[in-house]
């Protein structure tokens, strides 16, 4: 319990830090309005071109609510790769290593605190614009299922982001890995198009990879809550969290053994 208490304190401190600059927080969250407005224009034209009110069973309104949640997950996710890589490269990782908490759990607590606030603010702006353009959100009874999916998605993002950050132990520059990972999530996670609209071979491939559980799963749950889908999403997230989490802790332990810090 004592152990959880300190990470809870870090989580709360990060929430306060993020809230300390409300104007900056609001400006950064406004980007979702741009993205959703562009998507609304794009998909309106696409639905018109298809001559149907439904695309693979998804109505235009649901499509926009899907995109809203997918964007919220993406824009609110923990972005720690750069911070961790810098800490490794400039040696400031040493400052955290000799403190009475685990380096990875410290970053996890701080990252989730920031994600909670950024994600909530982004969802607020995104939800407002979609509501104004398309009408009310999906059935609120599905929201808790989607919220659980969002939490799992952010934990998965943390694992991959931290792995990229720790790559600084062996690589001069980690930013490109972060860019490419982000774009893989965009495409194989279904950020712009729900996976249902992909060619069958790509849909099948996506379901064998972690990306679908980072965006598509929670966003699909939001517009079409279903206990079967929920169990599938959570099951997939648990499997990938176990795999990526193990890999992360192994990489961290190996990296720390390689660490050489010169002077103070």
């Amino acid at each position: 319990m004592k152990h959880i208490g300190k990470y809870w304190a870090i989580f709360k401190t990060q929430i306060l830090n993020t809230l300390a600059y409300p104007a900056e927080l609001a400006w950064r969250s406004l980007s979702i309005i741009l993205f959703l407005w562009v998507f609304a224009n794009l998909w309106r034209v696409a639905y018109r071109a298809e001559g149907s009110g439904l695309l693979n069973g998804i109505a235009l309104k649901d499509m926009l609510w899907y995109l809203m949640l997918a964007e919220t997950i993406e824009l609110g996710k923990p972005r720690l790769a750069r911070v961790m890589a810098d800490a490794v490269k400039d040696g400031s990782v040493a400052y955290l290593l000799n403190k009475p908490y685990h380096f990875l759990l410290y970053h996890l607590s701080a990252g989730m605190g920031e994600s909670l606030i950024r994600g909530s603010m982004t969802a607020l702006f995104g939800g407002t614009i979609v509501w104004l353009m398309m009408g009310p959100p999906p059935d609120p009874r599905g929201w808790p299922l989607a919220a659980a999916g969002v939490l799992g998605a952010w934990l998965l993002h943390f694992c991959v982001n931290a792995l990229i950050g720790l790559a600084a132990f062996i690589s001069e520059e980690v930013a490109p890995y972060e860019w490419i990972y982000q774009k893989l999530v965009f495409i194989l996670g279904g950020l712009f198009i729900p996976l249902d609209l992909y060619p069958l071979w790509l849909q099948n491939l996506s379901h064998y990879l972690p990306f679908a559980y980072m965006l598509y799963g929670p966003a699909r749950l939001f517009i079409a809550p279903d206990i079967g889908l929920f169990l599938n999403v959570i099951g997939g997230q648990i499997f990938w969290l176990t795999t990526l989490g193990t890999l992360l802790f192994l990489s961290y332990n190996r990296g720390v053994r390689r660490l050489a810090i010169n002077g103070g």
Partner: protein
Amino acid sequence: MIKRQIPFLFALWKANLQAAMEYRGAFLTQVLGMMLNNAVYFVFWILFFDRFKQINGWNLNDMFLLFGIAAGSFGLGVFLFGNAIFLGEIIAKGRLDYYLSLPRPVLLHALASRSVTSGLGDFTYGIISFMLAGQIGWDNTARFFLGLVSATAVFVGFMILAQSLAFWLGNSSALAQLALNAIITFALYPISLFDNTAKFLLFTLVPAAFMGAIPAGFVRSFSWSALAQLTLAAIVFLGLATLVFQRGLRRYESGSAIQTEI
């Protein structure tokens, strides 16, 4: 006056390139990484047009062309004038002192003192994307590079305007980031998606049309009107940016901090 600055500009670019090449591994990772990043992003449009074939008269080849211009101009802008996207931070932190103390044009010197290495990856990807659009006659190629120069000028001008808000607002990095997101997002989508009000905004407030659709249309087929629009937009946005920066500079207050620019 302008003639004197050209060798200076080339000297800065050479120094930036040498600095970036000092770490070959990181340099190549960033350039190739950015090209791969853009290619993966473009898969979205391949999937989209696989399903819908065309959207309001735009097809996949048009998107290759649009990406060629947008990625190429962004890359060229941040590779040659990297501080265009960091100017607000320099102003807010009082780091203009360094440039003010030297006998060179402050804005030009500040802009070209930094090079974003990954921009070279964007620029190269832009050229590849143009070639994939299947319009590589000598006249299209000449128009592509002309369009690229104009789009770069509009992009850099717009960034200077957005970043110069720091003279009045102090730390306005989030607002400048929003402006950057806006121009890139709108430049990467077919302009035919938007209604007339939105189009008006894309020609004025956020001039994304001049960083994507207008130069892309000009590459497809020559028209005097498009050429005039591109030339005028480049002159207006760069002129306005210089004017606003100079006005802002009068409000600039030094932090009196000891600093070195490396």
